[in-house]
């Protein structure tokens, strides 16, 4: 927001509409509480007192219709993968996906298993991958900051939310 913003005296701020919209969006990322395995505990701890994702305006929602961000935390089996796709389609645009932990990234420890999906990018598009098994809460906080950066770069008016604009 900084580059397009001028601060004039007497409390007047001039900025682009894109900048304001993106700034508002990034300050209230509501994430879908979607823990599938071990990483879910770290996801819970991240919402707890020490890491406190609330600082970034990120709070959990129980339903996909109210959330902007899906944090897939943990191993995804084939049985679950179809539900993930369904939930992803239930979320309203613009929507983002964080793949948290090795299992969600590529199958991780369970790569040789017969029932585990080898990476959720085979089912839904992923914006940020977080490595670790499980990643620390700080890593998840950084992932949220990365999502905020992606949000700030988007040309919201131009694409009208129909197509994501990666620069």
């Amino acid at each position: 927001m900084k580059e397009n913003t001028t601060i004039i005296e007497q409390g007047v701020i001039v900025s682009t509409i894109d900048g304001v919209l993106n700034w508002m969006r990034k300050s209230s990322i509501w994430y879908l509480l979607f823990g599938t395995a071990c990483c879910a505990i770290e996801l819970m701890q991240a919402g707890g007192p020490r890491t406190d994702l609330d600082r970034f305006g990120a709070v959990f929602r129980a339903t996909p219709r109210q959330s902007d961000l899906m944090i897939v935390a943990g191993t995804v089996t084939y049985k679950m993968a179809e539900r993930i796709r369904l939930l992803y389609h239930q979320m309203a645009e613009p929507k983002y996906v964080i793949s948290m932990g090795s299992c969600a990234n590529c199958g991780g420890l369970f790569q040789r298993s017969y029932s585990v999906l080898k990476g959720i990018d085979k089912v839904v598009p992923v914006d940020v991958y977080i490595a670790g098994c499980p990643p620390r809460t700080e890593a998840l906080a950084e992932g949220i900051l990365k999502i905020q950066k992606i949000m700030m770069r988007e040309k919201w008016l131009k694409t009208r939310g129909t197509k994501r604009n990666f620069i």
Partner: protein
Amino acid sequence: MKNPAKVNEAIRHLKPQAAPFEEEMSLNFGPQHPSTHGVLNFLVVTDGEVMHQALPNIGYLHRGIEKLAEMTPYSGFMPYTDRVDYLAAMFANQVFAMAVESLAEIEVPKRAEYLRVIVCELNRIASHFIATGALALDLGAVTPFVQWLREREFINDIMEALCGARLTYNYMRIGGVSVDMPGDLPDKILRFLDHFEPIIDEYNRLISNNEIFVKRLADVAVISPIDAVNFGLVGPNLRASGIGIDLRKTLGYSVYPDFDFEVPLGKGFRGALGDAYDRYMVRILEMTQSCRIIRQALEKIPGGEYRANVKKKLKVEENEVYSRVESARGEMGVYLISDGTDRPYRLKIKTGSFTAMSIVEKASQGLMVADLIALIGSLDVVAPEVDR
């Protein structure tokens, strides 16, 4: 109105044309739902507020760990056991290590056994944090859960200082543990215990004796001792129904006979024996006992080796064993068959959550929909333990 029959009666008066369970509908509950303790799915058959039945549908986290064991060398399988039960990873570590040690006839040094007991009991406390906190969260009380998360971070710190991981520890090895305690860790643990023990009372004042909380749990989803045995309940769920089986006492594995501790039993604290409140309260009481064990273990811990000398490429002769420990969720067993190679021929993991889930079908009959949450929360099931 706690009696489901009475609730039914009330509904019948409201809708005189519909008899109970005449117009059934099936609702999908989960797998993505914040209060189902991981990915569990229930098909709730209901005619309004009273459930006819909740049919559990599991397998959303079935990762085929038993098959992976057949492809992995003995020493390499330890990280997988962490993920069998991520809330209480130490127990899964221990039960697998015990099985292999029994097959390969490895003597574990005394110091390693004491270290195992200390970390296991710390882990039990950490696991009961999530069990009791999440139950309160599911019933609508957010503060207790956040408070337990705060306390849990201290245990995470201790574990991190010990083995470098916060959740999936991979601490134990076949024949001992991976590293010895750092010199300042006993002090750290004692400081945590001194800080934590008064907090249990504070927590009881906050939520355990809270009238609303008690009303939501007391007399709800009563599991009789006969049902508990029939459905193979284990651990705190079984003890809440008044049956005092704790493998730490019954089998006396590891160095547990050295310690003086009690096994809390359910006795109908606020309602019937074996109701949801009993299952909750047994866990709270167990935390105090775990603190006692840790204090004694820190006092008695002997010096010496922390790991027996075990070959890295361990080959085990043809044999079989069934080893069991008392995990935070009850009896956890590993049935291990070796065939002379460096990897298991077959490994079966028996967990407490699997059997606890099977009782939901029966215990949920005639409950209110909101009480299903209390039932699942009080059973303390964890999805990976159910599915493996």
